[in-house]
């Protein structure tokens, strides 16, 4: 299990980050004493550090250098400053990456995962894999595979994203806006009609696994994955 040390003075943000990281099986600790960051770091011995720039007493750059003098673990800055110079400063002081506030969980998570993978070998230690199971239907988000019982089917990237969102909220309605937002790619945007096409494809894939009425359309609101099919 990976240990992540969070150096951030905003309690709300720390709590949210910790809750989210715990969901993925990481162990976390937040700094208590902003004058003894290095001591706490050494006591906890984390594999990765999330570090804010604006801190009481000393700034994040200072602590980054301090940590660098004793460790080579990945250090990710989380800061409200979005200037090029701030990022350069962070990297020059020994950071590995830079996330600007406000950020998405997904971006933070992707960066954490990629740095852990690079530093400690691919998928070593566990806790980074993510799969979802709803009534015997299992989605492997990383490998784009959907399985039920002994059957398995490959998904496209977009189909996996749609199923990911629907399965996370199975039993409740997921709005069309939400799905559009999730599958909007930097390369190509997705409009209403394209979403319809994707939803049809997802239905077909579900049908191929024997789930016929699993994905309901709720008029004017969105879609709902019922989850009340028989466990396969």
């Amino acid at each position: 299990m990976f240990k992540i040390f969070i150096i951030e003075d905003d309690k709300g943000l720390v709590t949210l980050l910790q809750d989210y990281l715990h969901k993925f099986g990481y162990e976390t600790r937040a700094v208590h004493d902003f004058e003894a960051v290095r001591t706490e770091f050494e006591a906890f011995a984390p594999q990765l550090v999330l570090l804010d720039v604006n801190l009481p007493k000393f700034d994040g750059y200072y602590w980054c250098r301090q940590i660098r003098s004793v460790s080579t673990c990945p250090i990710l800055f989380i800061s409200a400053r979005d200037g090029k110079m701030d990022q350069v400063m962070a990297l020059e002081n020994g950071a590995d990456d830079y996330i600007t506030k406000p950020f998405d969980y997904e971006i933070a998570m992707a960066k954490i995962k990629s740095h852990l993978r690079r530093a400690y070998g691919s998928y070593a230690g566990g806790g980074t894999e993510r799969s979802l199971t709803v009534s015997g239907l299992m989605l492997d988000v990383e490998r784009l595979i959907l399985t039920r019982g002994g059957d398995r089917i490959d998904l496209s990237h977009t189909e996996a994203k749609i199923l990911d969102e629907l399965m996370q909220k199975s039993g409740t309605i997921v709005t069309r806006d939400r799905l559009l937002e999730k599958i909007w790619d930097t390369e190509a945007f997705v409009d209403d009609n394209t979403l319809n096409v994707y939803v049809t494809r997802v239905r077909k894939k579900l049908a191929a696994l024997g789930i016929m009425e699993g994905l309901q359309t709720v008029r004017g609101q969105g879609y709902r994955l019922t989850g009340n099919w028989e466990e396969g």
Partner: protein
Amino acid sequence: MKLFMREQTPLIIVYLAQLMMITLVYRLDGGSGVTVSLYAALLSTILLLGYLAYRYLANRTFYERLMTVPASLEDSGGPAQNTPLAASLRMLLAQQFRLYQNDLHNYRHKLEEHIHFINQWVHGMKTPLSVIHLIIQDKDGSPFTAIGDELDRLKKGLETVLYTARLDTFEHDFYVERLDLGAVVRSVTSEQKRLFIRKRVFPVISVESGISITSDEKWLSFVLTQLITNALRYTVEEGKFVHFHGYLQEQGRAVLEVRDEGVGIPPGDLPRVFDPYFTGVNGRSFQESTGMGLYLVKQICGKLEHEVEITSEVGKGTTVRIVF
């Protein structure tokens, strides 16, 4: 020379009057003849001319200095010659210059502090924003959508404040590099996806591949975000598009056209849209218009040395063209 003559005219008049008076007194006294008087007048006039010539030569640069308008603050060094008048003027000017400089320095300092404060403040606001953003991120449904929308507005507002404050210190804060135009456009449109989805107005991107431009990514993204915000704000109907068209001009310059299918800008307002705080007819009928968006776009493009043009037709839409 002209100033000198004007300055000395009263002296010459007084001198002439004096000369005449003295001659008259001597004449009435019956002392001397006409020739003697004339001779005396000639001698004394030569003396005066000598004096005037000396005065002029001694103070020439001083007079020249008085006649020239200073081009800048540093220009008021004072006359070079060392006559008492010139020296005291130089001292006065120097003194005044120092006072002004002090004052100016104070104001500059205050302005810097103010900008620093704004910077700190905006960044301080971003943490609570991130917290709210993270809290609602996994939630779906109308109250959270509404909170998300408001959050986006707050974020945009803060960005505008930040960029307006930074505009004056632009030189310290930009980093020019080669950028792929298509990539920049796609990344900005993708960042604004919530807004597009909410308005049911979608981008159409047709940027010729391989167009690279020289610009600052952050400032350019801010400019594009402003244009997108405007385009979406003034597009009322759903199902319309915002077209991003990037191409190379005949002279080899890259052009990005952002064309919306919105309400358009009345011809009367068009020449003034780049003025600060100008909102025009549309600004009054649509909320949230600050009149700062296009002003900032123009200013930033100016600093980045991009040209920006706008054309519009009421009811058909507006096109903003950036020439790199």
